[in-house]
């Protein structure tokens, strides 16, 4: 690629890089505080409102978290639910989105309207609970996946990406004797990796963050994903429920350092997903596949 080396372009770059660095710092600092807070003592965290580098280092919080295998087991559940959930959601979403992206399909905008409608109107927690119960999904991990398998927003975005693929791809493929399934699997999917990576990421994050459905549908605490425990610790440590239960005298809330450590532990795995998907966002990722 030819680089633009003009003065204007250089000034543009300098300003651009500087701004991005500032933005990155501003977004990152509170997280640094959380990380640093997890590696220090309760005393230091109480004293300072903002810790960047701990003066006293301590692993107590992590020792506390990992002294039983509850967190590790729940992370296992989360990883499993996230992986299979994303896979399941992507298959359903991609199929439906592709079908609906074809302009020659009768009833297409009617079905889209049916989808959009569900974004605005929802029956609420209890009727959904009844459906899940009647399907026999209570206490099954599938209850965390199936009832939320397709997110209408993701479906609409996915369809939009499919619609924006260069026109004529399908026509030429059809002339080559490809069926609709063949077009989807051999042409559309490979050409849509940025979109697939994006939507997969959205699904993965949603599944990773699941907690309310887990509390509602899973009676067996052994199946709880890590977010349920994270949330429990954050709420207890923030003192949001202590008074009304009258239990605070007997059960001391978790320390602030433990809260920070759990946030770190529960956030890192999902952050690690991103770099794997990142290469699909590289500029021109699509072009290579078209020309090739």
């Amino acid at each position, binding site marked *: 690629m030819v680089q633009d080396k003009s003065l204007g372009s250089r000034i543009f770059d300098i300003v651009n890089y500087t701004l991005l660095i500032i933005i990155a710092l501003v977004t990152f600092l509170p997280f640094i505080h959380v990380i640093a807070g997890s590696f220090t003592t309760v005393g230091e965290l109480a004293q300072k409102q903002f810790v960047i580098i701990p003066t006293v280092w301590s692993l107590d919080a992590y020792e506390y978290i990992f002294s039983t295998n509850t967190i590790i087991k729940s992370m296992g559940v989360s990883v499993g639910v996230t992986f299979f959930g994303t896979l399941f959601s992507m298959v359903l979403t991609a199929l439906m989105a592709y079908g609906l992206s074809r302009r020659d399909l009768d009833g297409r905008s009617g079905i889209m309207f049916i989808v959009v409608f569900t974004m605005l109107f929802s029956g609420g927690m209890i009727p959904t609970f009844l459906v899940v119960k009647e399907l026999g999904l209570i206490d099954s991990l599938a209850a965390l996946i199936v009832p939320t398998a397709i997110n209408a927003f993701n479906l609409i975005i996915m369809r939009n990406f499919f619609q924006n693929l260069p026109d004529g791809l399908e026509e030429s493929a059809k002339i080559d004797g490809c069926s609709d399934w063949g077009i989807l699997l051999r042409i559309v999917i490979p050409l849509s990796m940025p979109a697939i990576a994006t939507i997969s990421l959205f699904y993965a994050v949603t599944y990773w963050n699941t907690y309310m459905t887990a509390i509602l549908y899973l009676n067996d*605490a052994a199946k709880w994903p890590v977010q349920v425990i994270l949330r429990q610790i954050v*709420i207890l440590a923030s003192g949001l429920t202590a008074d009304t239960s009258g239990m605070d005298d007997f059960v001391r809330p978790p320390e602030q350092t433990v809260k920070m450590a759990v946030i770190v532990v529960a956030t890192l795995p999902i952050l690690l997903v991103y770099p794997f998907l990142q290469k699909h966002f590289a500029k021109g990722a699509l072009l290579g596949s078209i020309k090739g």
Partner: protein
Amino acid sequence: MAKKKAGTLLAVLTAFAVLTACTGNSGGSTNNAAGSNTNTQTATETPAETKKEPVKISIMANLHTPEVPDQAIEKLIEEATNTELEIQWVPDGSYDEKMNASFATGTLPQATYIKNQTSLVMMRDAIRNDQFWEIGPLLDQYPNLKNLQKEVLANTSVDGKIYALYAERPLSRQGFIYRKDWADKLGLSAPTTTEEFFTMLEKFTTDDPDGNGKNDTFGMTDRSDFVYGAFKTVASWFGTPNNWGMQDGKLMPEFMFPQYMETLEFFKRIHSAGYMNQDFPVTSKTDQQSLLLTGKAGVYVGSMGDVAGLDTKILEVNPDAVLDVHHKVSGPNSEYGIWAIPGFGSVVLFPKSSVKSEEELKNILSFYDQLMSPELTNMIYWGVEGKHYTMEEGKVIPSTDTAMTDREVKPYMSLQIGGPVTIDGFLEAKHILPSKAKAEELIVDNNNYLIHDPAAALDSLTYNQDGARLQEIIKDASYKFMLGDIDAAGYQAAVDQWLEQGGQKIIDEYNASHTAAQ
């Protein structure tokens, strides 16, 4: 092929429609039937059966700890009571959602814990409509359960009938925690009147109690909580009634009493002088405590029991800090008094949708009766001797490995029924921290000065439906007054608004309920 698909689709759809319709239906009608008929039937059909088989009992309980407990203690309870327990732990922060969802879908377990009084009030209507077993007449058959106090049971009752077992809580833990070292340095003794209390806050702010030469301290640290924060306790010092009080033979809400206004003015004085944290209406409990721990503030009004946690932590920050507790402060026109809770924390209800017969109910009550024995109560409260605690002079010394007790014992405290007052042989702790030991003494001493809520067992339909929203009007006006945003006339306008939007009805209904109860 397309036709076949469409056929299956239709079949699936109708199946769902039927299924959901059925559930909605049965949720209502069969339950009612079970309520009136089945209990008498089964009671005659099946007299005491084989005792050998462990009784299965499902329980929904509140989880107050980060993780669900290890099952060792559960196993011991099961063995001792010949039961098979299935405990659904529900995280504290989502308890009411889960309970409501289970209730509406007919999936409540046999023993359902209700978090607190507020949640119990929400269930009143359902209780009245025969959704739960009445247990009052049965309690006398059980040697331990019959010790539950009549007055407290009355506070849990609906229309005079008893449906719930309760977990005991100390009636009033209210008082204040302060920096003894600061007070000593400034020559202040523990305040006994509200004016002395004010002086302490003033001196802690202006007289450089930490001696660092900087003007960086203030008196009181408070949080955004009208009840468990400082306000309600200070209001008691001024002689304000607890939620409701008698005025000219009529029940009136606390905020229409002159003492409440005096309290507001007192807070306004403290706040405007800068003797307390300026942000107290938005301060969280964590931040409130951290102001004390870091030596910014010297007085903490609230539960005296909190001193245990605060004392250990403050020494990490400042080894020279000394915390002390105090309870008795009297107002300008009143003797010391302190508001009390209705005597219970969580309660257990027995839904008719899952407890099918009176016999089943009796089995469950018998389990709770055994659970209320001193042996088992001590086990769910303190754990196993030698492992979770040791004994000294007949008192418990809990293990210092708090991580272990957090995991193995403390969650089971949620199951507790009764408490020190109702269980003879409930072990007490030997407090190593002098401040904590003193706090416990003062909590007991508070029992001599209690101000009870005369409306605790009374009912008002308007309050149940609209009380929380109306209460916000008063809360907003109170905060605005304390911060100086509105004056007494503005506050009075808010009270009028409260009366007009339904408050008057609440007053009338409570008074009617009060007359009916007498």
